[in-house]
């Protein structure tokens, strides 16, 4: 079996098998099967990294099977240095999510695990698709499991959050579908994304296409002002849902900019870069302040995610290697850090069933090991050097300084606000005296939780100290992208 098909279908098939275990009386079996499936899913993704050719920007591990003759749609898969890391990140995150939900999820266990496994396969499909229809199918289909995850296992306001999440994302993607169909005719009846890259398009059409793509991906990233679904979805989703949302699905939007907007409509991208940059800077500066005012920890991290993703889109639309690679590094790093922070909040929530900052205090007295992990991730979130959070932010700020000093200046304010909201929350939750009797009874993390957080801590530190393995795979593809975007496609 070719590796890309494996990373898509192994988790999906695993999910279906887990689903077949049925009701909650088989829950232990469902958990074990889910863990096996998630582990297998991660194992089959490793050859993508080990077998990756660093010196080419061409698509690798390509698969091409005709699918729908009528519209010339192909089952066409392939990855380059931009998409490959996210498949690994996704498979890895799925493994953590399955472990994190191990004993916490008690109702409809099989359905919960199956939803995450199926979603994992679908997301891998998004990153691996080289055919626009195939991409769209995966892009939309992954909404279904997430919708169910938020709605079934979520918090009190889950219904609102789930429907809002679904409709917001659908709004953007439907216009993208029209854009794909338009491009299909322009490219002479082809849905191949790589054919779109070569297509000469007039300026007006480029602008309209850019708007269609922008709506689809800006909602997904999410960028200010279409970000409002994210805090709702994050807060109501169960821990696993928040982790996947923050670590993976937001990246799909940013990935879309690199795979669609910039190469297909480069002239419009250059012309409208000011718009993206402005919105990104608003996200960085303003959403950072919004995060400062949150009383709910999950909401705080959700806003922090928006601010960090603002860095990513800012980096991309600077059109220089530092910016784009910095954005990519930031994406991966944010996948680790936000995932870890949501898991930390999950650990606390499982014990106290509250996400409000005011209900905590003095946690370090009862949970010292946990407090240490939490400290590391909080520091990483504020961009402390030697953690992964620093690398991406630093690269993007450098890239921004090359283009315009004021971009860099506004972006750099995040080093202050980011530290302020993260560390202030950390202080209120962890330090001080134990104020409530419930906190007094809290147990420190068990071996399972230690394992999950420990692995993530290694990733965060490893990437912060030695980011080369991550950036090496990107170089060729990013250089190629920048060269491509530099050329006008006006006819």
């Amino acid at each position: 079996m070719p590796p890309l098909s494996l990373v898509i279908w192994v988790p999906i098939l695993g999910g279906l098998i887990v689903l077949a275990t049925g009701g909650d009386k088989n829950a232990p079996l469902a958990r074990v099967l889910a863990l096996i499936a998630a582990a297998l899913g991660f194992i089959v993704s490793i050859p993508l990294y080990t077998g990756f050719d660093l010196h080419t920007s061409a698509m690798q591990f390509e698969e091409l099977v005709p699918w729908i003759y009528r519209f010339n749609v192909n089952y066409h898969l392939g990855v380059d240095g931009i998409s490959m890391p996210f498949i690994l990140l996704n498979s890895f995150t799925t493994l953590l999510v399955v472990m994190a939900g191990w004993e916490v999820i008690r109702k409809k266990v099989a359905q919960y695990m199956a939803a995450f496994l199926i979603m994992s396969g679908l997301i891998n499909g998004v990153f691996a698709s080289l055919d626009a229809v195939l991409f769209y199918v995966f892009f939309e289909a992954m909404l279904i499991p997430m919708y169910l995850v938020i709605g079934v296992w979520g918090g009190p306001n889950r219904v609102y959050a789930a429907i809002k999440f679904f409709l917001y994302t659908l709004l953007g993607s439907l216009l993208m579908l029209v854009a794909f169909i338009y491009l299909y005719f322009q490219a002479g009846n082809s849905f191949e994304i790589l054919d779109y890259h070569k297509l000469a398009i007039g300026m007006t059409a480029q602008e309209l296409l850019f708007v269609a793509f922008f709506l689809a991906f800006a909602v997904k990233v999410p960028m200010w002002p279409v970000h409002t679904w994210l805090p709702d979805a994050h807060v109501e989703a169960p821990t696993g849902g928040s982790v996947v949302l923050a670590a993976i699905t937001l990246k799909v939007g940013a990935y879309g900019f690199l795979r669609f907007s910039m190469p297909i409509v480069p002239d419009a991208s250059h012309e409208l870069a000011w718009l993206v940059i402005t919105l990104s800077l608003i996200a960085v500066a303003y959403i950072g302040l919004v995060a400062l005012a949150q009383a709910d920890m999950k909401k705080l991290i959700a806003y922090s995610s928006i601010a960090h993703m603002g860095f990513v889109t800012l980096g991309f639309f600077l059109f220089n290697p530092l910016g784009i690679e910095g954005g990519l590094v930031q994406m991966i790093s944010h996948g680790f850090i936000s995932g870890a922070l949501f898991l930390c909040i999950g650990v606390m929530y499982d014990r106290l069933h509250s996400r409000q900052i005011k209900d905590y205090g003095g946690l370090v007295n009862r949970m010292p090991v946990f407090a240490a992990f939490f400290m590391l991730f909080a520091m990483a979130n504020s961009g402390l050097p030697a953690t992964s959070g620093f690398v991406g932010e630093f690269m993007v700020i450098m890239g921004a300084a090359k283009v315009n000093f004021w971009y860099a200046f506004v972006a750099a304010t995040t080093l202050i606000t980011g530290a302020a909201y993260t560390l202030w929350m950390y202080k209120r939750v962890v330090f001080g005296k134990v104020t409530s009797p419930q906190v007094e009874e809290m147990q420190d993390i068990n071996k399972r939780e230690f394992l999950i957080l420990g692995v993530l801590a290694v990733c965060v530190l490893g990437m912060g100290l030695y980011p080369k393995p991550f950036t090496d795979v990107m170089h060729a593809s990013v250089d190629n992208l920048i060269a491509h975007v530099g050329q006008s496609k006006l006819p």
Partner: protein
Amino acid sequence: MNFSLAELVPLLPEIFLLAMLSLILIVDTMLKDEQRTGTYVLTLLTLAGCAWLTFSGHRAEPVHVFSGMFVDDTLSDVLKLALYLAVAFMLVYSRGYLQARGLFKGEYYVLTLFATLGMMVMISASHFLTLYLGLELLSLSLYAMVALPRDSATATEAAMKYFVLGAIASGMLLYGMSMVYGSTGSLMLTDVSVALQEGTGQKVPLVFGLVFIVAGIAFKLGVVPFHMWVPDVYHGAPTAVTLFISSAPKLAAFAFAIRLLVQGLEVLHSDWRDMLVLLAVLSMGVGNIAAIAQSNIKRMLAYSTISHMGFLLLGILAGSQNGYSAAMFYSVVYAMMSLGSFGIILLLSRQGFESEELDDLKGLNQRSPWAAFLMLLLMFAMAGIPPTVGFYAKLSVLQAVVEAGFVWLAVVAVLFSLIGAFYYLRVVKLMYFDEPLQTAPIEAPGDMRLALSVNGLAMLALGILPGPLMAVCLIAVQSSL
């Protein structure tokens, strides 16, 4: 005019159906109430026989018989096969419901077969009169079926409304046809088409007649502003009949529209295209927005039908073989989705309990995870979310619309389908996120469970491999038009 027995061969399915229908009518009178299953089985066998006759009698080239009043082409064969399948599924779904309500009578089956015969005639008609005859046979059977529970005030009211409005629509249609006749001197679709190409007809009465014909078609499809009957009839009719009205006749209505507008009046494409644009946009708008406000699931699905028919019109108005085949694919897929959704509603109805309110779906995932999963697939298919087949139906229609140069129309269509997604999502929400109000176990005969599973999973299977069905639709359109 010479007539040979060979002329009857393309009509074999219709003749067989009529013969069996008469037989069932007689046999049914001799059956006791507890033997009524005999009628049911006989009806299904009749459909199977028709399917075999249609399938084996298939020819690649169109065959015109009865001096050109009746045509047997690939388009009609494919649509008829889909029709038999839809009717058979509908019969399987409705048996338990009818038994529980004392409606399990021969009349239901005989009327169903009459309606089927009417639809077959519509599908194969190539003459204004045959089209009209088929349409009336279908409509009259449906009026009677809606009024089948004759003690029910809502059902009789619905039947009355349906009848009165249907009669007006038929009148308009006839009026339009007579004008076209007056202008072109023929009722034969092919002759009309030739006359129009030669430009012999007068333009003004032609366009005038066209308006009435389009209005008649719009009524039969149930698109805005000729949609008033749809919610009331869907709501008032017994669910088993609603199931029927919402599925198979849409296939016939599609054929009806294609025969009239494309085979007969394609020269006037630019005239009817603009009318259809208006109808389509209004239908998608009104259908999707009004559906949000419904608490009755039958009414909700009625408005959803209206919006889907608007989408179907988009394919026709594109005016290319690509568009017609997209519309055909859409109609077949829609019939399947509608069958399945009403099938689930029938599944939830029991003795003395009508499942009509959306709230009856609450917590279905806890009562029956499998039924909930099937309904989930059906609802996402209706909303056009991949990987279900509903997405490809929308994709192919949108593709045809963009090809015809109507990018704005495609944008309007997707925006309305976004609104539509809301109420389908709400159904999923009720099933998965809410606690059940009812705890009664869900019981259904084995054949119904099997048929429902096949129907629901077909949404997914055809969504993963939509190619063959799309190809069949394209071939049917290419070889027939």
